[in-house]
């Protein structure tokens, strides 16, 4: 027994002295973009939800440079699947990953990624992306090719002639729609993840007013009244029957289906849903039937949820890194307009034109974001746990709003402590 314990201890000590496979210390400057890329193959890690634009961008790059791109697709939940592989020490040449601060922190970007601050394309980023996406400790580690997804209320123009712009109006609109017999709101409690969106929207005012900074500095807690009140508001909407009758088991697919069919008046969603609507009903029908409205507790303030960005890991292979740098240059320059046209999205870089196929509702979301929006969901310094599970417990009555807030705080404190954030 003693021998077994000693062996275990020895193994542990060996592991401890080995260090984390994630760790890597390099400090080269950003590589020069290569011009001759024949014979070079770039490995790109990506999510399975990326749209057609990336495929065409890769093909255009291959055609223009002679390089080959080998996409490695990670299934959902791609963030954790990608991080699992990252934890083994394996590195791709490029990766299209989440740009939130808390995810960036897990990559230890100062050591593992190239700092893109000061690159031409960073200065051209729209929607404030240069300061908010893939940014950690003031440095920019990603090129965002897509506009960010914006949280907001998608509404049916026939059922909701005047969309609500704050919580009070949302409650009264719900009552009016309910009287007409339609379902005011649909949320997918079965899939769980969609249930975060309305609370995020309701928190926007308080977070923008400084609550987020206080949370990040441990000057405030998730049990703050602004957080709890938004959760109480959600629960109250549930109690008043504003949501679909199958809220506990509803799915994202059904949310779209019922909204498109005109059976549901409003859905809190990100603009990522726009491309699905374009596929199912087309831009003309969308423009005729669907609207988008920013909404928070007291004001119509939009918040962008998240966005992908292209990041460049330090691989230690100069030739590969020069080719990766060439890709970033091409993707943000000669190849970008075609990418935007195929994606049918607004450009995330200045100097390019928006395709005519972008629905009016989606354009309204981008306009709201550019005029007075915030990117607070990108900028949390730590994680706040499995929020969808907490919301599911709230919906099912096994947690109160106060308990959900306490769970968020406990997860937040644990994450901040593990990450070694100052003040925690």
């Amino acid at each position, binding site marked *: 027994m003693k021998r077994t314990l000693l062996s275990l201890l020895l193994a542990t*000590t060996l*592991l401890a002295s*080995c*260090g984390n496979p994630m*760790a890597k210390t390099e400090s080269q400057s950003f590589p020069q973009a290569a011009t001759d890329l024949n014979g070079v193959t770039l490995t790109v890690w990506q999510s399975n939800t990326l749209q057609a634009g990336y495929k065409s961008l890769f093909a255009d790059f291959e055609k223009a440079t002679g390089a080959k791109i080998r996409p490695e697709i990670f299934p959902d939940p791609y963030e954790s699947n990608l991080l699992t592989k990252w934890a083994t020490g394996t590195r791709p040449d490029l990766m299209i990953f989440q740009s939130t601060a808390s995810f960036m922190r*897990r990559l230890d970007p100062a050591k593992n990624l190239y700092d893109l601050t000061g690159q031409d394309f960073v200065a051209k980023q729209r929607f404030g992306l240069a300061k908010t996406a893939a940014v950690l400790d003031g440095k920019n580690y990603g090129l965002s090719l897509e506009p960010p997804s914006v949280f907001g209320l998608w509404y049916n123009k026939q059922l909701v002639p005047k969309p609500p712009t704050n919580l009070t109006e949302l409650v009264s609109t719900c009552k009016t729609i309910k009287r007409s017999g339609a379902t005011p709101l649909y949320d997918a409690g079965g899939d769980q993840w969609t249930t975060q969106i309305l609370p995020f929207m309701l928190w926007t005012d308080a977070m923008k007013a400084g609550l987020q900074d206080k949370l990040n500095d441990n000057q405030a807690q998730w049990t703050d009244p602004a957080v709890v009140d938004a959760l109480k508001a959600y629960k109250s909407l549930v109690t008043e029957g504003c949501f679909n009758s199958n809220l506990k*088991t509803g799915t994202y697919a059904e949310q779209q289906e019922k909204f498109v069919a005109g059976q549901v008046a409003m859905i809190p969603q990100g603009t990522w849903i726009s491309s699905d609507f374009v596929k199912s009903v087309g831009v003309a029908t969308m423009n005729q039937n669907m609207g988008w409205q920013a909404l928070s507790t007291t004001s119509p303030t939009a918040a962008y949820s998240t966005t992908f960005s292209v990041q460049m890991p330090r691989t230690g292979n100069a030739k590969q890194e020069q080719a990766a740098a060439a890709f970033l240059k091409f993707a943000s320059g000669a190849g970008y307009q075609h990418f935007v046209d195929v994606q049918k999205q607004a450009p995330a870089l200045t100097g390019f034109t928006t395709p005519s196929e972008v629905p009016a509702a989606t354009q309204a979301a981008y306009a709201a974001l550019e005029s007075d929006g915030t990117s607070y969901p990108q900028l949390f310094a730590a994680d706040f746990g499995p929020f969808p*599970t907490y919301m599911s417990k709230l919906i099912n009555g096994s947690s109160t709003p106060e308990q959900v807030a306490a769970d968020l705080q406990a997860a937040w404190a644990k994450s901040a402590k593990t990450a070694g954030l100052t003040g925690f």
Partner: protein
Amino acid sequence: MTTSLRARAGTAGFLLPALVVVAVFYLVPNLLNFALAFTDWSAYKDTIAFTGLANFRELLQEGALSTGLRVTVIYAVVVMIAQNLAGLLLAFALEKPSRVHAFFRAMFFLPVLISPLAAGYVFKALLADDGPLNRAAGIEVSWLGSTTWTIVVVALVNAWKFMGVNMLVYIAGLNAIPGELLESARTDGASRWRTIRSIQLPLLAPAITFNFVTTLIGAFNTFDIVFAMTNGGPGDSTQVLNMFIQQQYAQGYYGYSISMGLLLLLLVCAVAFPLLLTLRRREVDA
């Protein structure tokens, strides 16, 4: 070399390849893995430091662990009982070799070949609030929306999917019972039920032991069917321990999640070994 030594050397020769494979691909990786349970390995740090029992202390303080344990035990017990009962009934029904029985054996074994994720998604659709089952039966039951009963529903789907394996093991056990025993029972005028109770079930004990223990271990280690059907919901009412482990790993708490894996292994051992010993004591020879 004596005959006994030669026999032992021969046995060792047969055992060696299997032992090497188990040691290299299972034992050593697991030991190294479990050593990490005593470290602070996370996605946030460059180094891995030995932290003793800190992960386990944190685990015991977290309420989610007790929920995960309770859910896992309920799930495993329901699966163990339902899957064995179904397998045993099917085995008695399809015991005798015939073409019809062979067809039905194949039919009941078919779900075993389906991917657990696919089976989970199919049942998720079937059991939806406005799904085919409720519509066909004209009822409004939220099969997957109950914080109390959904875990049982998911466990029964698991039992349905794997009952074919138990059925085959039980059929093999029944067919191994000497025919003369059954014949003499019939000659003595024993009823079908008396034959099952006094002859077949006692002689089926090794198969029962095997099926109960493997079903229990399999159910403790479940993930995919639950993930596909409920994703741990509603709330965390179906969040089995493996889902909790995955959740923690996904958040970058590697050492912490490995400590949970070690705890799950200990739990499986703590339940499976006593069960194995108890069932083995009941076994009799024909």
